[in-house]
């Protein structure tokens, strides 16, 4: 039997890889991918807790997280297309009109 902590450590590691990608990359598609990696880190912890606590609430929550992730990806990618149509780039550092 694998201890619960191992699954939660794995979820934490995956979450922190997502945080690292989000703060260090400047490509907006990779930043969206990093958000998905963070979601998956949380999902691993939730499914593990759901199994070890014998309660299905965790899996239902994962279901909702996947629904929200799908919505977020659809709107985020629509924004990326809009951005590329107007600015011809997806590098976040080049988008500095509001600098003042």
């Amino acid at each position: 039997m694998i201890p619960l902590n191992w699954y939660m450590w794995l979820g934490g590691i995956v979450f922190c890889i997502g945080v690292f990608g989000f703060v260090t990359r400047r490509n907006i598609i990779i930043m969206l991918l990093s958000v998905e990696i963070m979601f998956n880190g949380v999902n691993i912890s939730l499914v593990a807790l759901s199994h070890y606590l014998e309660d299905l609430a965790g899996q239902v929550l994962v279901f909702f997280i996947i629904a929200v992730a799908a919505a977020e990806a659809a709107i985020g990618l629509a924004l990326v297309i809009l951005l590329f149509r107007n600015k011809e780039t997806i590098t976040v550092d080049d988008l500095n009109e509001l600098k003042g």
Partner: protein
Amino acid sequence: MINKIFFFYFSAVIVAMSLMAITRRNVMHGVLYMLLLFFHIAGLYLFLNAEFISAVQVIVYAGAIMVLFLFVIMLLNLREDILKKQFIGTWPMGLVASAGILMVLLLSMLTVKTGEKGFWGIAQIESVTQTVAIGTTLYTQYLFPFEVASLVLLVAIIGAIVLAKKRLK
């Protein structure tokens, strides 16, 4: 013993694939590594008796969201963007910050005390099958959040269409 070997295989591949996904210069390669990552996470869910979530992970994440990413990348002409340096100049600061968060998470999980066990034990789930169990929970206890989730998806559909369509004269 055998389940430990499988756990270490899946967790090693998950960590390696997520690291590869965020460090590739070409976005297309990153998305393909993400695809592998999602399949391995789905495999990990099978060990946690979550067949339904595992199938949803493959169908929705790998099948829908990642294919959407691939389509968008192929629509855009990213030849100039993939020639740029992939990390910002101060990336060690990001490394320190995320390593700090990781330390806090790992140490705090050492003292986790789980609460009381719920109703759906393995024997209970086996008597009705897993999909019935999760459906019962979803449509009775979590009915209102379920309806809200469908509203969120509707808003996302309308928002994506309004944002991405061309202006009509």
